[in-house]
């Protein structure tokens, strides 16, 4: 299943800024998202920024990537240009409205 626009942009940026190949980059980001309780298909740029700040550095270190903070900065830059129009609404947004 394809990931959200934000997820795809972050994967491409991670692949280009490290020695990881495409599948390793996707896998690393997927593991970080799982740790954060998020899914590749619906994750937004705002949610990914939090994951990049709190979870991804640990994953990068476990892959032997030394300059994790520089890589994370590149990912954040890539996310700033993502167009999220037309993205499907997440279940959390729906449930937030339903009980208000």
């Amino acid at each position, binding site marked *: *299943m394809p990931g959200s626009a934000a997820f795809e942009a972050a994967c491409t940026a991670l692949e280009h800024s490290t020695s990881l190949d495409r599948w390793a980059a996707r896998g690393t980001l997927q593991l970080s998202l799982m*740790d*954060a*309780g*998020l*899914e590749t*298909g*619906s994750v937004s740029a705002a*949610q990914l920024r*939090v*994951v990049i700040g*709190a*979870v991804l550095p640990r994953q990068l270190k476990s892959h032997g990537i030394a300059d994790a903070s520089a890589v994370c900065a590149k990912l954040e830059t890539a996310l700033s240009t993502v167009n999220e129009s037309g993205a*499907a*609404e997440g*279940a*959390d947004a*729906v*449930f*937030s*409205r*339903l*009980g208000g």
Partner: protein
Amino acid sequence: MAELSLACLALYTVTSLVVGFRLIARSYHSRGVPELLIGLTYAASSGIGYPLTVTATAWSSRGATLGAMAIGEALIVLGCGCFLLFNAKVFRPTARWSVPVALLGSLVLAACGGWVVAEFFATDDVALVTERTRLGTILFLAVLVLGQGWTAFEGMRHYRMMRRRLALGLAEPVVTNRFLLWGISGLVSLTWNGVVNAYLLAGANINLHPVPVFAVSFGGLVTAGCLVLTFMPPAWYVRWIQRDRTARALATA
């Protein structure tokens, strides 16, 4: 036992009506499809359709009985179909299989509902209709049980994910709790309809046997509670959930 069962079901019906119409009104203002789908589920199915079919045979005129049965079954099918579509649209919005599966389930529900109505039009002997449509009722409940299993699975899966998001500040405690309540209501409904279906398969009269009567009554009561706490949470409950979360965060710190 019969009075208690009736009281529990009446409570569930009234709760469904209030919650359902409230959600439909909300969908009118927000233009949100999920609100409309779940509002129709509760208002049409358990709020109006189910009581209509249960009381249909109490009418003195055959025309009124047939009318109540036809309208009631149609509303139950509409509500249950909306319930399946809600699961598909909200929990699996990007999956290609979800909407076709929900539509297929709705088609089976419509066929079973139509079967029951056709038999009611063919004869006024209720016992004969019940016997002739036993297979249709079992099939209807089987689809409903699968739908409720889907609800329970998605509710619990999202609750697990939301707890992780909560730790990173990506979720609200009250919304996280709503997924738990949604999962519990799915589990309870799954159990109650599963018990009824098992007794139907065994050839028992589900209106007289104490086990299915208790399952339906208790299930209705718990589901009504979950509905209120999910869709119309009282201020004290919201405060309790938020305070509990804050206390846990402070304890961790």
